[in-house]
């Protein structure tokens, strides 16, 4: 999968090289227990080894968004040679697999069409999402991750908020992206993108 290989050749070479006080109302803060000294016990310290195996999130397989009656399996898309996003097929809900997986720190993204040439498609009602709506992503193995929508924004494709959508985050986040706004007949394209921003709901 592409996201597993973002760093290319120079990096692989490097990897090979590296295998080797105050007080209360009666001002009693000086009142403290007597001093004790622990006996030395270095066994645990000597046997300590820092964690070396990263946790990895299983890949997402399905998504459901009850508020707008969306549910279905996930396909995968990546990047075109010009670094533009690959467009999913009509009728597909598609995880952008060169980004984060849902549940990993970073912005994961799911794309879907707003409509086909003949009528509404999977993300036709994405613009209706509002703060607090839930997005449930099922990953391989069956675990369900619940994301909560924070906001929905509409931006001209010519001024797509790249950093806002794609800059790394320390927490798991999710973006749902489709088209919106006016349809430009001359270009056969919607002028805008609708983007829902959601964060992982921690129990």
């Amino acid at each position, binding site marked *: 999968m592409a*996201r597993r*290989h*973002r*760093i290319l050749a120079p*990096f692989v070479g*490097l*990897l090979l*090289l590296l295998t080797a*006080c*105050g*007080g209360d*109302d009666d*001002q009693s803060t000086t009142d*403290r*227990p007597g*001093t*004790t000294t*622990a*006996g*030395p*016990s*270095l066994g*645990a*310290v000597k046997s300590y080894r*820092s*964690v*070396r195996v*990263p*946790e990895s999130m299983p890949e997402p397989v399905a998504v459901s968004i009850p508020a707008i009656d969306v549910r279905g399996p996930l396909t995968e898309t990546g990047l075109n040679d010009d*670094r*533009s996003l690959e*467009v999913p097929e009509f009728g597909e809900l598609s995880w*952008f697999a060169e*980004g*984060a997986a849902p549940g*990993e*720190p*970073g*912005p994961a993204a799911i*794309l879907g069409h707003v*409509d086909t040439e*003949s009528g*509404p498609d999977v*993300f036709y009602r994405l613009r209706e999402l509002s703060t607090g709506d839930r997005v449930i992503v099922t990953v391989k193995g069956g675990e369900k991750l619940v994301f909560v929508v924070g906001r929905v924004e509409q931006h001209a*494709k*010519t001024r*797509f908020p*790249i*950093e806002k959508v*794609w*800059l*790394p985050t*320390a927490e798991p986040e999710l973006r749902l992206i489709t*088209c919106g706004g*006016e*349809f430009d*007949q001359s270009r056969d*394209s919607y002028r*805008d*993108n609708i983007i829902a921003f959601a964060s992982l709901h921690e129990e």
Partner: protein
Amino acid sequence: MSAAVGLLVTACGGATVATTTTTDTGHVTNVANSQTQVTAEELRITLEQQLGQHALLAIEAMRAGVDGQEHYDAAAAALGKNTEDLTESIRLVYGDEAASKFNTLWTNHIGFFVDYTTGLAKGDKAKQQKALKQLDQYRQDFGAFLEGATNGKLTQSAVAELLQHHVDQLVSQIDAYHAGDYQRAAAIEREAYAHMFETAQGLASAIVSTQDGFAGSVEGQAVDLRSSLGQLLGEHAQLAMEAMRSGVAGEKDFNAIAGALNDNTEDLTAAMSSVFGEEGGQAFMKMWANHIDFFVQYTVGLAEGDKAAQDAALKRLEQYRQDFAQFLDTASQGNIPSEVVAESLQSHVNQLVEQVKTFHAGDYQTAFSTGDEAYSHMYHTAEALSAGIVAFMGGEMPSGGVETGAGGTAK
């Protein structure tokens, strides 16, 4: 000039408090902020750093207190220094009178935590209950203070609720620690530290929206990234130091602290994976784990008086410094230059080694002042690292919008 003001001034190119314009808001007299060079971002990061450190040092002092450890006075003094730093930040925004009021309230609440700890150590339930009651009153008083300071942007009840979490976390961690449940204590320490970042962001937002002169925004992806890295790297330094001190003294909580340090390493790795991909994250983790192990090896050498083992660990740390700097330079395609990373790591290594060496020698004051430097240093590192990541990601992120519509519902 205090470190806090120094930090703001350094970051913002020479801001000073110059105005005497005042507005009476009931509880606090606001001093209109004339520090036009102080950015909203710097205010947020400074408050996060200082409030995060407050939680960490309060926890360390409470543990030393409940166990009657020799370094208690130094830990308490470090916490006092943090209070002065926070007071200077408040002074910068709200002036002398508010700073004085803040300092009194804040100092008192630390005293209540100390009283709770003392009661716990002595099995004095009445003292514990009294301290909890005083902390409850403090929540109301501090809530009123901030409500006045922020012109009602932060309500007394909202602040009191935020503080309830802080109180619960600090009390439950020391209860767990005293009961010998070090793992739970360590897990709560991480939560308590993280909670202060929410608090700081809310406070910074309220200040910026009610005071003039703070350029920019406290929110945004780049600021969030810097904030997250500061949080994780600051926590790394603190937990590494706690583990080294616990290790060299042969304390029973070593495994729990080391476990929390592992959790921090996993979080940092995940953050790095989101920048450099899964392979990059794995490479980062391997090197990062090595450098923690080298610090622990140094600690063992120190505890056993084995000079050769100490020297060997320092030699490995020196090699790590070079390798890690080269790694970030290569992975970021030069956006995080190796010389910058190598220099930063030299300070990190020196500080962590110095603090455990002095701690072992019984010079706790130097150990904690060096610890303060080590913690602060991580926030400078986070600033440089996040700027490099943003620059690197400029060439890595998907470009433009996406064509996800054929117009069937619009034509």
